């Protein structure tokens, strides 16, 4: 029972991290209908930037802030320089562009920072929680709290502010939003800023959580998150979060606890194909 609980808690943390990476992808897909594979490279850059700032300043707060700012800039650059000019072509063109960006960034990181695994020796300033004689480690607590915080802020921005209203309007119908006086290109860029900053948080968190930062840490999430947004319902934020949590838990429990000899990284795609056959609009999709 103890092991089960431990694995469950790990699964939730894994799911929370998936959610943080997937959020940006979902937001971008919702507004541009582009599969932003390069988002995972932004996440990797976030981890490296965080590590760099942390190693030079020793401040974890600055590390998060620096990574978020750098990634936001990178996200907007990708949007302006690659996606925007390619939107007039069939959807596979920006998708291939995105994959090329992703691989190029991975290569650049490998050349600049080296092909090795760097450690991220930071301690997150969170207390260990004791629940009924059971201890939740400070790192896990940090993952939970930070994810919840990010979700809360995102919910506030999209649900409670005018900018969020503009974002939702633009994702419904961009020409109409334009006609209503919304600067939709600005809104698109803002979406990238938001999504990329969240990816930076995820990158730094993962770096600390596993104490590892390496150039290809985004490869598996890059494609797994695509499966997650299908399972959650393309473009649905709540669906993406729920699907991420379920996947994190399922992966950890099935493979870590039940020891089913299943390839961990294929699970997301098996779930995705099941969803495509059985409920095509996804868990929370509107069936658009």
């Amino acid at each position, binding site marked *: 029972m103890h092991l089960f609980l431990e694995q469950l808690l790990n699964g939730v943390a894994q799911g929370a991290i998936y959610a943080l990476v997937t959020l940006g992808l979902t937001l971008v897909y919702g507004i541009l209908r582009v599969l932003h594979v390069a988002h995972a490279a932004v996440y990797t850059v976030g981890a490296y930037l965080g590590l760099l700032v942390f190693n030079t300043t020793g401040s974890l707060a600055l590390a998060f802030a620096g990574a978020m700012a750098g990634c936001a800039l990178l996200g907007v650059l990708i949007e302006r320089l690659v996606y925007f000019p390619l939107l007039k072509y069939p959807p596979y063109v920006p998708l291939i562009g995105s994959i*090329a*960006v992703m691989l190029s960034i991975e*290569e*650049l990181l490998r050349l600049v920072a080296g092909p090795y695994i760097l450690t991220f020796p930071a301690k997150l300033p969170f207390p260990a929680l004791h629940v009924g004689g059971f201890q939740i480690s400070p790192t896990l607590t940090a993952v939970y709290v930070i994810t919840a915080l990010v979700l809360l802020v995102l919910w506030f921005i999209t649900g409670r502010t005018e900018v969020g209203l503009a974002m939702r309007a633009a994702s419904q119908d961009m020409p109409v939003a334009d006609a209503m006086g919304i600067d939709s290109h600005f809104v698109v860029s803002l979406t990238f800023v938001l999504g990329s900053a969240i990816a930076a948080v995820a990158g730094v968190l993962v770096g600390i959580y596993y104490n590892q930062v390496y150039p290809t840490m985004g490869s598996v999430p890059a494609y797994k998150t695509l499966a997650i947004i299908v399972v959650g319902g*393309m473009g649905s934020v709540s669906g993406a979060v729920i699907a991420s949590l379920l996947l994190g838990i399922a992966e950890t429990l099935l493979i870590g606890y039940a020891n089913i000899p299943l390839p961990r*990284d294929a699970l997301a795609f098996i779930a*995705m*194909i099941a969803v495509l056959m059985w409920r095509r609009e996804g868990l929370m999709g509107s069936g658009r």
Partner: protein
Amino acid sequence: MSAYVITIATLIVIYAIVVCGLNVIVGYAGQISLGHAAFFGIGAYTAALLATKGHFSFWGALPLVILISGLVGLLLGLPSLRVRDDFLAITTIGINFIVEAVFLYVPFFGGALGIGGIPRVMLAGIKLKGAAFLLLCLFFLAVVLAVCWWFTRSWAGLACFALREEEQAAASMGISPVRFKLTAFVLGTGMAGLGGALYAHYMRFISATDFSFPVSITLLAMLVIGGMGNLWAPLLGAVILGVLPELFRPIVDYRMLFYTGLLLLMIRFQPGGLLGEGSFLRRRLRLKPGRAAA
């Protein structure tokens, strides 16, 4: 020719065959596939298993390999048919990951060790290697190109072009989307299977990573750089992406970056590829605007 040149040339020709199959699916029928390496792998594994465990000769196994690759293509193509565009892209990525996982985790397929000891191809009692095997590959490339050429001139091919351009209009002209998409899928995966069989008998040792997702990206990059939908694009793309890394061998560290950077620049500034309409190559060579269909 040195052995080094022959090795590079053989692999280029094999990749060109596989990319021809991808061209049928993506270029002709407009069905985006990001998992073509899976079918390349299915062909290679089928050939390897038939040769090592079934003791088939290359020639005896070949029709079976193509048939099985095509059938698996049909089977995996079915769920793909229910989805379009973005979903299709993700589904085919998924197929690639799942197929690779099966190769890697099912003991029957040799697991992480892969399959070794695949015999060389025999022809008239002679073991084909080096230049002779290259000639064999060139022969198959010629066959595949002829099939592609014929496909573009056939009603089936025309139906696929129509589906690629405008599915609803095509259906209103009696073209069954399911039938023709599957036709393209089976034809394309069959060609990938042929390429896989050649690859297995050339390398004589295969493992799951030879057919992982990045390989699919490389195959697609070859097609994009050549010019999707053009008959010669697979060959041109395979030659460019096969030769350039060799030329850049002195700066081996920057090879991958060069590769991905080229793909990025190409898709950003010339999404139609080198042989696409209005490309700088066409303007430079003053080629007539190509027939869009063929």
